[in-house]
């Protein structure tokens, strides 16, 4: 485990009565990365996030943030957390909540908060009571409150909950901006499409154990599908079918199935030999959803029960 890691978790276990929420869990997170925690419901993702904040005490192991044990309130300086189901008082306006948080943190200014609200398109809600907002509006306000200022570590539990597609794009942009400003972002989300678009790394958890972690690119395998980008889709399809490949036309080209992913080179050579013009040929990679299902399937095949 490298010394310059911002989060260091070593052999952490936690159980709630008879349920083992985390088991011998270790993880290190480098500064400036956008990490995702993935796993089925009850896998231990939220428990892990809460252990990082000292909200849940671990039974064993050590957890440090900024080289400080999480039992110390100082470890939470520069840390921002958005819980999944937080309900701020309905009478409170974003301006009131920000004023309170600003006093506690002594970190951010109202200008920074306004800027964040502008980024999340909720600046016109500053003086509206939260009780008179939609769920999506409340979520955007909460994200603005949590991320304003100069956070060093941002923990977001289901940040896109209740947001429309436009709101999700804004959240993705916000997360990228936070990372570009040097913040480390840890996201717990079931929206794999969102995670895939914004995260650098993924940590798969199941049954309280770390199954696999790594960069998204390294986790997704090449599939048995190839996409050939061509204006002569019909001609290309016929040639490939004559050769014995199963294929279909999709927008901008043809998708061909390979019985063996390793046979991609042979197919590429065949396409070159046909002389049909094409602008690109790619072996398609697994989506994060495919990766998720494959990893979880493999895990359950090994007989690991998921904590409920």
């Amino acid at each position, binding site marked *: 485990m490298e010394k310059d890691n911002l989060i260091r978790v070593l052999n952490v276990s936690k159980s709630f009565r008879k349920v083992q929420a985390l088991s011998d869990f270790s993880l290190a997170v480098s500064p400036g990365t956008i990490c995702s925690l993935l796993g089925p419901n009850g896998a231990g993702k939220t428990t892990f996030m809460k252990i990082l*904040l000292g*909200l*849940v005490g671990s039974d064993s192991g050590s957890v440090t943030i900024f080289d400080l044990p999480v039992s110390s309130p100082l470890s939470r300086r520069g*840390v*921002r957390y958005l819980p999944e189901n*937080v*309900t701020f008082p309905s009478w409170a306006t974003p301006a009131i909540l920000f004023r*309170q948080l600003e*006093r*506690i943190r002594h970190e951010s200014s109202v200008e920074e908060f306004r800027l964040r609200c502008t980024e999340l398109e909720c600046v016109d809600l500053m003086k509206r009571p939260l009780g008179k907002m939609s769920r999506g509006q409340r979520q955007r306000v909460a994200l603005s409150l949590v991320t304003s200022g100069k956070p060093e570590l941002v923990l977001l539990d289901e940040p896109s909950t209740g947001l429309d597609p436009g709101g999700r794009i804004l959240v993705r942009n916000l997360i990228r901006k936070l990372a570009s400003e040097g913040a480390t972002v840890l996201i717990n989300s079931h929206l794999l499409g969102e995670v895939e678009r914004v995260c650098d790394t993924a940590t798969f958890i199941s049954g309280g154990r770390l199954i696999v972690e790594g960069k998204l690119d390294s986790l997704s395998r090449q599939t048995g599908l190839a996409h050939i980008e061509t204006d002569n889709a019909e001609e290309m399809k016929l040639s490939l079918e004559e050769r014995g490949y199963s294929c279909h036309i999709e927008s901008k080209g043809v998708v061909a199935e390979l019985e063996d992913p390793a046979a991609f080179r042979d197919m590429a050579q065949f396409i070159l030999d046909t002389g049909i013009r094409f602008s690109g040929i790619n072996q398609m990679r697994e989506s994060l959803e495919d990766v998720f299902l494959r990893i979880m399937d493999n895990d359950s095949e090994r007989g690991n029960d998921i904590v409920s």
Partner: protein
Amino acid sequence: MIRNGGTILFLNSIEQLLRRKIVLTAAIAAIAFLGLYWWGVSAASSAELHMGHGQADMAVDMLSPADAALAAIITAGPLAATLMTALIIVIGSTMLPEEIGQGRMPFWLSLPQTRLKVYLSIGLAPLAVSYVLSLILFGGIFIITMIYFPFTPKNIPLVFVSMLSWLTVVWAAVMLLSLVVKKIASMLIVFFLSAVATLFGGLYEMMQMFPGEAPKALETITYTIIYAFPADRGYRGVIYGLIPADAVITENLAFFGVTASIPSIHLIYAFLWSLVLLSIGYLKFRRMDF
């Protein structure tokens, strides 16, 4: 930064409490109560006694302004105390559970604050609001009585200290119970304990006036109860501090428990008792997973 955060959280909790309907209802009830009290006392002060020749003058002579003030205070005191006890029980039992239930507690605890500060900042708000409202209510009773029946109160500083002692005992009990059982259960238990403590507190006062008269078993039960839940001593201290120093019929009002003095050690014991319960509550809160 960390030092100021607790104060901000406390003020935030106060603001939140003041916006709750139950506090607004209690404030309106307190004002209505004072209005009725004013009406009643002013009517009593101008009432004419219709008796036989010479009897009215005799009756008026018997009842000095201080005695009238005493009668008024000991009539209003229990009602005001019931109102304030109910308020602190309701808001004290809901403050922490609501912060937890609404998901705000993880948010507050994720700020760079110690758990003790978060616990006290949020937990102290109901005590502060109830104390201020009680001061207004009992202060109002005192002022209205003074206007119509001028008197010198026995011990005003005792009122402030006793009121804090009484409310702190109820608050500490309900805070602890709200972390252990459901909030409705915590309300009912503390309300029951308060009622029992008041009943036996009255008996204790009478036993002080007539030592050795009560059956031994009753004496033991009474002593056990007033020490097991010492809210009543503080409440009686409030009444005792407010009553006129120069009333002549105090002995006849022993039933109301206003004749005996409240030794300081009783109030100190009540504060220590509260501190112990508050500490147990904190230990429970510190170990809780959010």
